[in-house]
């Protein structure tokens, strides 16, 4: 009897130890690929190789920086969820109609060139989502898997805690940036957040890249608060050139 128990325990401990060793050997590159599964290891390696030339950083440093940026997004998501839960508890919303699983709100109109950020529950990296007001009533945004689309502000629903912000720049820049973004409708979605600052403005793009490129090309605004390798929705939301308008 003791032998059987000892064998089971030994097997369990050996298995756990092996798992632990394997986990510690998982490279930053592998973790990045697992956190944004739409981008292959080869594709990522090629981009990092190019970045070693343009930045002077080593491959390991680049991978580590990308990974840390992703992890920061997950941490921010946790903080955001905690803050929302506290707000819901105070308002009493946590206890009604399914609590935090039961409410989405129409984002509604805003001025041309404004944008909205919504917490958006996503797995892998919880990075939220942003969409740009092409006009006061029409939102242009990049959504997986269909890509860049337009949708009426009268029907677009967002999470509680979403914010609408404006961008401090000229109306000409706003007009040109929104027109450029609208012209991108139909472009496919890109899952590459880790290095989307350094990919081309044309072609496939994700939600934050769409807005970042629109104002980078039209007004030379860099709507990326931390200037890391990736422009995430929260980077656009927190960019210094943005001004809070309202919270949902």
């Amino acid at each position, binding site marked *: *009897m003791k*032998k*059987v*128990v000892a064998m*089971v325990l030994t097997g369990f401990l050996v298995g756990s130890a092996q798992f632990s060793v394997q986990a510690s050997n998982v490279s930053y590159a592998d973790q990045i690929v697992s956190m944004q599964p739409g981008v292959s290891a080869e594709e990522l390696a090629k981009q990092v190789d190019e970045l070693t030339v343009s930045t002077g950083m080593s491959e390991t440093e680049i991978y580590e920086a990308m990974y840390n940026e992703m992890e920061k997004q997950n941490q921010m998501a946790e903080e955001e969820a905690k803050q929302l839960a506290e707000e819901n508890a105070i308002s009493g*919303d946590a*206890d*009604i*109609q*399914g*609590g*935090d*699983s*039961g*409410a*989405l*709100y*129409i984002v*509604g*109109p805003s001025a041309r060139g404004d944008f909205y950020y*919504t917490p*958006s*529950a*996503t*797995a*892998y990296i919880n990075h939220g*989502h942003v969409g740009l007001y092409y*006009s*006061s*009533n029409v939102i242009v*945004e990049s*959504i*997986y*898997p*269909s*890509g860049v*689309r*337009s*949708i*009426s*502000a*009268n*029907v*677009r*629903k*967002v*999470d509680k805690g979403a914010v609408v912000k404006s961008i401090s720049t000229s109306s000409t820049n706003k007009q040109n940036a929104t027109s450029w973004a609208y012209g*991108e*409708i*139909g*472009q496919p979605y890109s899952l590459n957040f880790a290095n989307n600052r350094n990919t081309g403005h044309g072609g496939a793009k994700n*939600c934050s890249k769409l807005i970042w490129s629109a104002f980078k090309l039209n007004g030379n605004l860099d709507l990326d608060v931390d200037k890391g390798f990736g422009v995430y929705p929260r980077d656009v939301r927190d960019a210094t050139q943005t001004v809070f308008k309202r919270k949902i």
Partner: protein
Amino acid sequence: MKKNWIWIGVIAIVAIVFISYLFLNNRQTPAGTLSKETVSPDLEQKTEAILYFSTTADQDMNRDGLSFAVFIDSAGKTDLLKMNGLELGSVYASGDTLFMEDRNNIFLINPDGMETFDMETEEHTGEVTGFQDGHFYSVNNSGFTEDGGYQSNIRVGNEDGFETIHVPYYLHMSGIADGELFMVTGETEDISLQRMPLEKEVDIEKIASLGALGERLGLSTIMKSDGKFYLLMSDTEKLTAAIYEVDEQTGDSKTVPFLTYSDADDYRLRIPFNLRNASAIHDGILYYVDGLGEVHRFNTKTREAEPSFQIEGIEESSPYMAEQTFFKKGDLYVFRYDAASDSHVIDTYDLASAKRIDEQPVSGLEEMYQLVKKKGKRVAAYDFFVR
């Protein structure tokens, strides 16, 4: 030796229980929701109303968005069908068949059970659904052409199968009546009202030009009555809403002022719960219900706005708690969350008298919210259909 076998047996049982738990936790059809095998033959017959809830498109990033059709019987008891997500998706019923859809499937439920149809073309933005000549037509505003242009996709079919046909436009507004699809389409410089018969062959005809889009925006579906089209559009710059009356034969249009908003917040709060079901014409009166539950009337004969009434239980402080409306003949059905009883109800109002004539509690939605919560998602009510 005998004890060893007992221990091995215990470990095996524990392993089987653990594996079963993992399997049940991850299977496609969660406990308490319907599947092809568990749809009862009388589900179609006992279903009085259907609600549709879905995650938004941005929650489908990892292909794990989800939606629910909620079948409600006359006692307010519910059955849940879990599907993939489809933002703005719709539900419909015609004859003895219930129609549901998600981003890549169509589901039909009739007395023979449930049939599922895989759709090759995925949709991500629902628009409007109807039934004509034995076929369901579900219009989706979510397609693109290879050169980056827009196209809207219409899923057409019945129990014999479904296919997708294409309309080469983004739809600013749409509506289905008298076997035709009506739509407001065009570039922002010049939008127009167009029509096409609900047939597999796409044949589009322009009815009237509506000028530059400007800051106008549809507040409901396109309605048709007595040879005239009625389009309810807001102007978010002027903070007003007007009714555009278009003659079917001549294309002549008249604009009649309808609503005024006090400010941008007032406008935003009054955006309807579901544009598809926000208005209807009955006995020459156009009824429109806004996002604060105020019912507005417009007499199509005299072109005068008439006194309105207020739906009870919808408060300015907490709108958008899954409210949905549906007009049927002379009644308005309102699905809402009742904070006082912490439950959901369907109220029925008689439009002519503006009186609430029925209040039906609805049970069983908590199960859906728990499934959603478990997935770390949020769902919105997107459609409501009363048979």
